[in-house]
């Protein structure tokens, strides 16, 4: 008797991921591990990609892109901070570096040439938040989320001029906080 081959349906349903954190971390890891020396990672592209992936999942239909971008900026901040912590722990003789996210370079500020200490920034940002929620959010959106000041202004709901001022104020305050002592 002749046998017939039958097609197999590969599992199509994806696991629902709890939050943007996992998704972004995954994306960031994948982007960075591609180890291209000439590759420039674009945070907005990353957020955009994560959004595309998450927006379609069930239970998230009501989520607006603004909600998502704000959450994503926070998530990206967390990822960097966690990474920096893990990195520091490693340096102190902790566990061997994990392959998972160790490929993330420490963020640098091109123009000053000096690396920003993510952990210090993270702490300072929380202190800034107690002084001005708006400023802290703008920094988060701009520095961690990669948004332009214009986009951040729309998202926070302030006029562009106000956003300029808040940004300058935050920058001054954080620069002072990070360069003090």
């Amino acid at each position, binding site marked *: *008797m*002749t*046998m*017939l*081959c*039958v*097609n*197999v*349906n590969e*599992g199509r*349903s994806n696991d629902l991921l709890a939050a943007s954190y996992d998704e972004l971390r995954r*994306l960031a890891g*994948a982007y*960075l*591990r*591609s180890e*291209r*020396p*000439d590759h*420039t*990672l*674009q*945070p*907005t*592209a990353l957020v*955009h990609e994560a*959004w*595309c*992936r998450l*927006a*379609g999942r069930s239970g998230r239909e009501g989520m*607006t*892109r*603004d909600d998502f971008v704000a959450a994503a900026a926070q998530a*990206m901040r967390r990822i960097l901070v966690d990474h920096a912590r893990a990195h520091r722990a490693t340096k102190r003789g902790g566990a061997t570096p994990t392959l*998972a996210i160790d490929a993330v*370079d420490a*963020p*640098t*500020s*091109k*123009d*000053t040439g000096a690396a*920003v200490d*993510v952990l210090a920034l993270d702490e300072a940002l929380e202190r800034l938040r107690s*002084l*001005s929620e708006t400023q802290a959010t703008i920094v988060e959106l*701009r*520095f*961690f*989320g*990669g948004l332009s000041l214009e986009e951040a202004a729309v998202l926070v709901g302030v006029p562009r001029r106000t956003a300029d*001022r*808040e940004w*300058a*104020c935050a920058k*001054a305050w*954080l*620069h*002072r906080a990070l360069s003090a002592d």
Partner: protein
Amino acid sequence: MLNHDAEITRRAHALLSRALDEVPDRRRAFVDESSSRDSLVCDEVHRLLDALDSAGGFLETPAWTTPTAAVPRRFDGRTIADFTVLEHAAAGGMGDVYRAEQQSPRRIVALKVVRGGRASDAALRRFAIEGEALGRLHHPHVAQVVSAGVFDCDGERVPYVAMEWIDGARNIARWAAETSLDVGARVTAMLDVCDAVAHAHGRGVIHRDLKPGNVLVGTDDRVKVIDFGVALLADGATRATLDGQFLGTLASMSPEQCRGPLEQVDVRADVYGLGAMLYELLAGQPAFDLSGVPLAQAIRIVTETSPPALVGVPEDLATVVAKALAKDVDDRYVSVEAFARDLRNFLAHRPIEARTPSWPRRARLFVRRHRIGVVATTVTTLAVLVGASAAAVGMVRARVAEGNAERRLEKLETLTTFLTSMFDVEGSQTLGADVTVADQLRMWESRVDTDLAAAHDVRAQVHFEIGRGFFTLGLYADAERHLLQALALITVLNGGESHDGVMTRGKIAMVLEKQNRLKESEAIYIELLPLVDRVLLERPSQREVILGGYAITLHRLERPDEAARILEEILVARRERQPRDDERVAATLGQLGRVRVAQGRKADAEACYREAMAIETERFGAGALRGIATKNNLAVLLRSLGKLDEAEALTRDAYETRLARQGPDHPETLTTQANLAMQLLSLEQFATAVAMLEDCTERHRRILGPRHEDTLKTVANFARSLLLVNRSDEAEAVARELIGDAAQTMGASHWRVAWARAIHGQSLAQLGRADEGRAELDAALVALGSAKGPPKEMVDRVKAWREAIGN
């Protein structure tokens, strides 16, 4: 004390905030004049203002942007083809340039080695063809190509181009700025460039990457165009390694190049490149400033926006530049000669041929740009209805949100509601081969590219989703077409080695396997293998989907041992993630079961299937579509093991589920139907079985085509069933035709051809044509003896037939 510090900080921050409302020069005075009596607060605000002054680029570059650092390959002292590398001279867009010495004739050349080194075969082929043409370009303003080829570098085939060395080479924009040429001199220099490009066009070579960096001026002030056709190498794999460079190139890349495959552009892309170059020479900056702009947005800028008006440039000249830079190729100069002619008109103060676009035309362009949203949503609604992911809808919503156009949104929702209700009425929201959905998809697919022309990211996504929709519907040729279009876009947007690129290529490989184009499928998988480990390391299950697909292709290529090794490895990994990955374990078990059957390890196969079935029943319930394949496969196996009743029950269950969920024309429904018919045949329910196989044969031929492997199997079974009910004349006709079809698809020496011949022989014997039948059966037995892997039952059957005839 602590509270006091906090209070100072708070007040300083508040004062700073107010001070920043002043113009920078007034800020410190404002602080001093402020009502704050507390000198500690004032001092702190001054320190904050100091901090702001010295902040520079602090926080201005997003945290995730990693600085660009190109690492040139080390070739110093090495010999590449006929050349000895002397030193690294420059890092260019496509790769690195070395100063090198040619052996004979002995001379210094510029040796350009393409970076990345993993050019695709297709790209290398094109490059080889183009390389020949390059050597034939002889023009005073074309850098003479000495030779072009491919050399072996640590096992990789790396393309190189050797060309004349230009002393003191600078790019034309820098040269123009440094020598402060006037407008006329700049235009004259551009005319030399135009002549060079026109010369190449006359010999069938399109440059494709004209930008100031590719026009060099040596110490003798002569312009030389370099890198003709080299951009062609930048497809697929190579393009991905050039992402960083791509942005630089994008600023002078024509909209149609941003949009589609490089090889599809014509000479007017070079007209655009020349226009962009002239713009930069005149304005002192590129037409589009794309520094720090995300790629997707950069593409949007290039394809949708106009560059800033040229200030201080004569209006006629600005008009000529604008015509060369037109978004729509049809609005551009038809040739470089036409562009050059108008430049000469300008220099001679003659009237120019260029005209600014008419108002109606501009209005039309505007409408075309703004129609995107409506159609995008419609298309994605359809994509969702056929079961594709809703991700595309998310993208479209995002675009709508960006535009903030409430009326548009309203319109979209109306349309969406309308379409949804329409599909509800048709009752086709279920996932299945519903003709309505497929037809609607077809109706809309033709408009994706025209109506979404500028929105590449959305377009890529929509093509991918439509492709998946067709894949789900079992319409594989349509699926392939859309997946290829998605891949072309993704390659340009993110590179073929991006995550999306890899996943799309994987899907294409699966579509090819489904269409029986196994060699092509295998070739794609071989390309993907090194990539999946890199790109999908973080997503093991996606990596495994691709590897599993590869295993299936190998299995179909009748290389079960290789397939089994891959699947065993996947199974181990997936079992480690149990119970979370239960269903994936089941999927792999199902695939491994098929391979075990092919390996002849039927007991192992049965164990695989049974475990998979247990998992799937637990996960999805008894009547779900998921898990049907396992039931079907197990049934086929059980039948061959003689467990006929259980086999029949499982197959009937599978068939009825598929019929209800996927419709009668879905290829998988057909396969299951064919299986059920065979079970019935085994159970000697001949009449029902034959009728079912007849129906099945008709559908297979119609849907998969007469030469598809599954069609061939069904036809063979149909012919065989006809023998059993003594419809021998029909069996003879069907089998005779089958021999030819099978030979065409499988190759003449395949056992399926021998099997068809055997059926033909037996039908002849049953018709009383014993001699012919005997000859046919003997031939079949010889062929079966030398063919690879015919099922033992089959050989036994043919022997029995042959013995029954006697001599």
